[in-house]
């Protein structure tokens, strides 16, 4: 008997908690599948949606944000088998889950580690607190496809930012699976937006977008100087991180510090 012919879907983008086709209607082939090829307009839509979703995420209590991230780790673990197939294997999935758990625990500790109260001369209680920078655009590294994406996106999320990420171009399926997990998690729609497509095509638009506050060029290949130059148009924070690192300083690079002078008096 002939082998059963599987149904073959075309994978979509993940914008605003939904799975739209690219407005351009284009796809490209990766890992033997048809995958959405996002356009400049999709990137623009994603930034707009991220900006709108950001205040709610940033305004959540740190404890809550930690819980939501922990829940995401649980959901990825429950889909371990699928993720293992779409990444380099079980080890990558386990490390991804552990990494999210690790970051989840940071959400309500950042202010204590990164902030300070400052002994100023004068009748003021002066303190410094970390705050999210806003909308972060991330160019995820090609490999590892799952852990690389998560290692860049989750620190930004932990700090309370909204994210527009361009997934691994060569191995986008893990990102799409992650989108499925995110869509059913408690991460509010629009807080994480995942674009698949050609990085070289999307990166310049995100780098020069005036409503993006920070740019992570970890996954940029070659032309990163050009992207950094474009990022200067609105003084973006430019971060080149590690595709596989786990550090509170990765969170801190997507944070601002606010100092408040509060009067003291009777």
């Amino acid at each position: 008997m002939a082998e059963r012919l599987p149904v073959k879907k075309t994978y979509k983008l993940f914008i605003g908690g939904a799975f739209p086709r690219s407005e351009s209607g284009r796809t490209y082939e990766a890992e033997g599948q048809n995958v959405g090829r996002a356009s400049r307009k999709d990137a623009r839509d994603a930034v707009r949606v991220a900006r709108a979703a950001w205040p709610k995420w940033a305004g959540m209590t740190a404890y809550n944000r930690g819980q939501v991230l922990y829940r995401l780790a649980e959901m990825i673990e429950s889909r371990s088998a699928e993720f293992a197939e779409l990444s380099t294997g079980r080890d990558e999935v386990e490390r991804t889950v552990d990494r999210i758990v690790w970051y989840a625990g940071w959400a309500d500790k950042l202010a204590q580690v990164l902030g300070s109260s400052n002994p100023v001369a004068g009748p003021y209680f002066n303190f410094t607190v970390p705050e999210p920078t806003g909308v972060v655009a991330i160019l995820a590294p090609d490999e590892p496809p799952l852990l690389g994406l998560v290692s860049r996106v989750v620190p930004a999320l932990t700090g309370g930012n909204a994210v527009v990420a361009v997934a691994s171009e060569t191995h986008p399926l893990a990102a799409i699976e992650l989108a499925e997990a995110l869509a059913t998690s408690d991460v509010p729609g629009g807080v994480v937006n995942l674009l698949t497509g050609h990085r070289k095509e999307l990166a310049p638009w995100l780098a020069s977008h005036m409503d993006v506050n920070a740019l992570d060029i970890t996954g940029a290949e070659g032309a990163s100087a050009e992207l950094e130059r474009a990022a200067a148009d609105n003084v973006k924070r430019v971060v080149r991180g590690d595709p596989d690192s786990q550090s509170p300083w990765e969170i801190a690079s997507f944070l601002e510090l606010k100092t408040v002078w509060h009067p003291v008096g009777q």
Partner: protein
Amino acid sequence: MTELERKQDRTPVPKEWAYAPAPESRDLVTLDDRYGHYVGGTWLEPSETYTTISPATEEPLAEVGQATPEEVEAAVAAARDAFENGWSGISTAERAKYLFRIARILQERAREFAVLESLNGGKPIKESRDVDLPLAAAHFFYYAGWADKLEYAFPNRRPRPVGVAGQIIPWNFPLLMLSWKIAPALAAGNTVVLKPAETTPLSALLFADVLRQAELPPGVVNIVTGDGRAGAALVKSEGVDKIAFTGSTEVGKAIQRELAGTGRKLTLELGGKAANIIFDDAALDQAVEGIVNGIYFNQGHVCCAGSRLLVQESIYEPVVEKLKRRLTTLRVGDPLDKNTDVGAINSEEQLERIRELVESGEQEGAEIYQPPCRLPEKGYWFAPTVFTNVAQSYRIAQEEIFGPVLSVLTFRTPEEAVEKANNTPYGLSAGVWTEKGSRILWMAERLRAGVVWANTFNRFDPSSPFGGYKESGFGREGGRHGLEPYLNFDGGESSGG
């Protein structure tokens, strides 16, 4: 307001009433006719020079060097040599003591420096004496103490100096900005090439004499003078590991572009258009003093100046009335007079910019108020100015004027105040005036600015981190956080740049 207060409020200020002049002695400063660049602990004869003047009188003060790229490179080489052959190897406790020495000498010579700062920059001696100098010395004291405690500031991160720091500072607080830059850089173990602003090089050049007195090893701090071309050469120099810039957003962006792809570290402290927000429950007289301090302090040449006044609608009239009345008592004139509140505009170029923006405000339909005051004939002067009837879209409500010009807008609810305050590409500072503590913190949470002052404005302290959100730049100066831009760590960076 009681009937009596209302009456007092309307009492006109006597027209023929004035303070007797109380000039500070110009003789406290001895200037050379000509200065070179301070490189490797000695004076390098400059190949080109220009004349630096007093903006209050246009009197020439000295000839100073216009650094060529070669001269900048010589300074960078001296800094590199000092970094590799000595400074980074010196014990941190000794490093701390050099900084303590500098702080103490600055305190001892405060009066001399204050006079020079007012002479070359045009700022009132009252401010140089009471703000710039004490804060500059305090900054060196504060960071002196950090020099041998870095591993406590950054546990488990193995903090190490970056190397040679190129620092470019503005003309509004020349010596104070020098201290904000040099103190943390040296405390962290770096060496420095500093370029003061074109119009205000003299306090930095006199500071070289403080370094000599402190016996700081040669090459640890190098000072080159000149205009933007010298700054550009410093930014381009491949021998520089880190650039710290304070100045306009436009130049900051150009520097960020220039450094793109080089991997060199950068911190930017750029422009602002701060909202000073007055709620109807605020102590109005105190708030009016704060508004005045927020925008007329240092002729408004302050990146964090409260240049947009947001007044709650219900108190708009009394606030504007009190403000205009207070303006009539501001004394504009000789920076060296101890009674002067508002000094000279720093340069002809800046005066032109202020004039141009003020004209745009009138053309766009805002209502201008300037108190009657006689401005000196020589020098660069601009009367304290208030604009009412200002719409959010007017240039005077959007662009940084960097002069004594206030734009007044109104709001009804705290939400509207937040919305309006945040509606600019900048995010350096903001002010909130209210008697309600919970509202202060509610506002502070929502204002997208690096510094929020409540019931005060333009207050600084070496332990308090300062720096911007959005297009006001990145990185912090002051406090423990102010050390980070000058250090490399294990495990990555902790803030932008």
